[in-house]
């Protein structure tokens, strides 16, 4: 009844899909987290109008579905004169989406900074930016890293939707395979299994990367 060989025989397509899913994630995750850190700084230490803009952005993104954000960018923006390729739209949508969640997550880490740390930094004559980058941010990252890792995994899984605007990622290729051989169920079982493996691998990788490159091992 089931025919998985027909799916696995299409491995070049699957590989191509995995490659694009990885590209989308690798391109959007660092930018999204960096944007989140920058916005979190504005929320903690910025002017009132800056705080208001960031708060609005965060609430708008967190309370609307990713697929609508993607469609708005890909179908809506050309009407406003900005035309983006499917791949660029996908990456931009993922950055915007992750940025909003990362802002909230990193903000929680920043709020937990002890006052004495800030006083020590200002007594060393560090500027506000230096204080944020070297005193506030590293321990904040260490504190919220598990939540941030989960969010990056969620965004990677969310990229399955990008196939709907013809970005050739894994779910797009799974759809292509099933449209050729009508083995829809098997095709999506294989794709789902690959996504599961990807999410486990990504989680491991980030748990390994974070302490080594983003904040001290001791933190």
């Amino acid at each position, binding site marked *: 009844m089931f025919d998985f060989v027909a799916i696995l025989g299409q491995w070049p397509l699957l590989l191509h899909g995995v490659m694009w899913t990885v590209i989308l994630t690798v391109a959007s995750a660092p930018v999204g987290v960096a944007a989140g850190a920058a916005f979190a700084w504005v929320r903690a230490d910025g002017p009132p109008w800056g705080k208001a803009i960031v708060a609005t952005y965060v609430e708008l993104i967190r309370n609307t579905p990713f697929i609508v954000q993607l469609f708005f960018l890909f179908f809506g923006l050309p009407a406003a004169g900005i035309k983006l390729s499917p791949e660029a739209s996908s990456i931009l949508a993922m950055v915007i989406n992750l940025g909003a969640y990362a802002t909230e997550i990193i903000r929680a880490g920043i709020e937990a900074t002890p006052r004495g740390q800030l006083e020590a930094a200002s007594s060393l004559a560090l500027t506000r930016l230096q204080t944020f980058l070297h005193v506030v941010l590293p321990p904040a990252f260490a504190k919220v890293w598990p939540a941030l890792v989960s969010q990056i995994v969620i965004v990677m899984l969310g990229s399955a939707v990008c196939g709907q605007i013809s970005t050739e990622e894994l779910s797009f290729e799974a759809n292509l395979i099933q449209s050729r051989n009508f083995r829809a169920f098997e095709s*999506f079982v294989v794709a789902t299994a690959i996504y599961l493996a990807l999410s486990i691998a990504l989680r491991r990788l980030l748990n390994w990367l974070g302490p080594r490159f983003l904040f001290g091992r001791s933190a």
Partner: protein
Amino acid sequence: MIDFTVWDIVRNLLDAAQWTIALSIVAFLGGGTVGFALLIGRLVGGRSGAALIGGYVQLFQGTPLLMQLFLAYFGLAMFGIDTSAWLAAALALTLYTSAFLTEIWRGCIAAVPRGQWEAAQSLALSFSEQLRYVILPQAIEVATPPTVGFLVQVIKGTALASVIGFIELTKAGTMITNATYQPFLVYGFVALFYFAMCFPLSVCARILERKLHAARH
């Protein structure tokens, strides 16, 4: 070609939003029921039961909801069940919701101090009595804010049902866009309607959480 006024667009989207709400309610109630059953299974099922349910949670949290929807849609058909997009979407979203809710609630049960279980046992209460009169009343208090918060994820999740052809808010947006060629306006309204549904729940979850923290400190 039919001319769509802005009011026509809004009216049609409002109609479709009812299906978003209906699907959300079905997924939330169904997912809540299944999630609660899994929670009990985890409490009484011993180590193998816990491992099994842990695997279930991992499976749904580690794969895209879109794939789960496709699998439900094509899987039901394979077993000879006449699939409607509505049935497949309701099934997939129910299972997805149950996995997340059971995990959230497990944490809330774990937050009840061990001494409460022991005290209930020493009063010779049966397991179901311990749960009903001692543990759950305390756990529910902790569970309410994240559960309300997760409802936002459920509503947003229903948008993916559009991909398997269920006509809810997002799908209606696509159909109206195809008729009007005004994607900027239409998807703007679609986003606004989702926001109108989700934002109050987000605020509600935040207020509940603040109240809980205030009560505990």
